[in-house]
């Protein structure tokens, strides 16, 4: 499976810039800026200004790094959400246990693929969405649907090896979305075509949750 994905795919420019800048700015701050920056988004040290929805810049190794770090950030968020969840009962508890394990595997996979280029995990505050079952369920639906839209939006922007790996994750996110939707009696597959969202759309949605603290 995608375990053999190696990002040999080395972005020399980014690597050198990171080396120059050292660690004067913590990764967490970096990411915080990435998520909170307004018009121009920076993530993994790359500026992504004014991305129109669903415009597909030519795939490149440096863009792969940017996209994989974007995906890693979302997976960090999901993994932390499920790992921190408590007071759950019944099938919701089972869902959180199984899906949490998947998200942690996605994190591990993406970190391995990115190697030294991997962003660090932000810190999160999920409030009562991880302590109240109804809030947890509603949030899980949004997070999983968002994950699907995020991966679908990035597919045309990455090189083929990364696309293959992302493809093996996106359908699992879609399975999670359908599962939690069925648990809460929402249509598991509400549309014939899932809608993609751009990186800036997703990050705006993530920012709006207030889950990322730093």
């Amino acid at each position, binding site marked *: 499976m995608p375990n053999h994905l190696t990002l040999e795919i080395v972005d020399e420019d980014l690597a050198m810039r990171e080396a120059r800048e050292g660690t004067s700015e913590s990764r967490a701050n970096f990411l915080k800026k990435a998520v909170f920056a307004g018009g121009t988004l920076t993530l993994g040290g790359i500026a992504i200004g004014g991305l129109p*929805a669903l415009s*597909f810049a030519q795939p490149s190794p440096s863009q792969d790094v940017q996209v994989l770090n974007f995906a890693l950030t979302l997976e960090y968020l999901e993994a932390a959400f499920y790992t921190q969840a408590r007071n759950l009962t019944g099938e919701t508890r089972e869902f959180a246990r199984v899906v949490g394990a998947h998200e942690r595997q996605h994190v591990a996979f993406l970190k391995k693929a990115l190697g030294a280029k991997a962003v660090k995990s932000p810190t999160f505050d999920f409030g009562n969405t991880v302590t109240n079952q109804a809030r947890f369920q509603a949030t899980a639906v949004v997070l999983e649907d968002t994950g699907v839209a995020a991966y679908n939006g990035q597919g045309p922007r990455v090189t083929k090896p990364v696309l293959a790996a992302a*493809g093996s994750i996106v*359908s*699992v996110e*879609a399975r999670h979305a*359908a599962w939690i939707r069925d648990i809460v009696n929402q249509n598991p597959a509400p*549309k014939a075509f899932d809608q993609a969202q751009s990186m800036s759309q997703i990050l705006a949605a993530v920012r709006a949750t207030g889950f990322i603290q730093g």
Partner: protein
Amino acid sequence: MSEPITLDQVDSDGAIRETMDAVADDSRAGFLKKSMLATGGIVGGAAILGAMASPAHAQTANDVSILNFALTLEYLEAEFYTEAVNMGALRGEVLAFARVVGAHERAHVSFLRKALGSAAVGKPSFNFQGTTENQAKFKATAQVLEDTGVMAYAGQAPLIDTDAVLAAALSVHSVEARHAAWIRHINGAPPAPTAFDKPKTKDQILAAVAGTQFITGAPAMTAAGGSPSFTG
């Protein structure tokens, strides 16, 4: 694609409207349709749909081959669900599943045929070997078909040449995964059995489809199908 594409620009012959009408019995699809038609503009996944629906000549021969492979699988799924609903053997959530998913698969067929234009393969004839007239057999078969659909799209996506075709395939791929998880949940099977779904090649998928013996005849000369024949 910095500006919204209007439906009329890309849907001069109304095929997308027809597709949306066809899935209107799904309330959420109906909502989507209303929101799209109300604004007169389509965004996101629907923009992909529009972009792909207009210029078939923009596709490569490779993409045409992949889309026809996908179309054949969608014909099979669409026919399976349409027949199962019409046979009247399904009950409860299984019936709701078959109705919603059948509408989706028919929308995928319409979309792919529209995208392929005159290059679209015709619909084969099918015999579902009794799986559409028995709820237990239907449930088991639906699970296999949907999991297979997920693996098929996953296998083909990295082989697609054109961005618009890829984006459209991805928007279908995740819906197939939702279907798979849904029927698995109904069946008491793990909806998401692994952290990474495995892709399969076209040859692997075609061998699996051949193994079902569901396809009993070559496509007709044109894709214009008549009323479905019920094979049980």
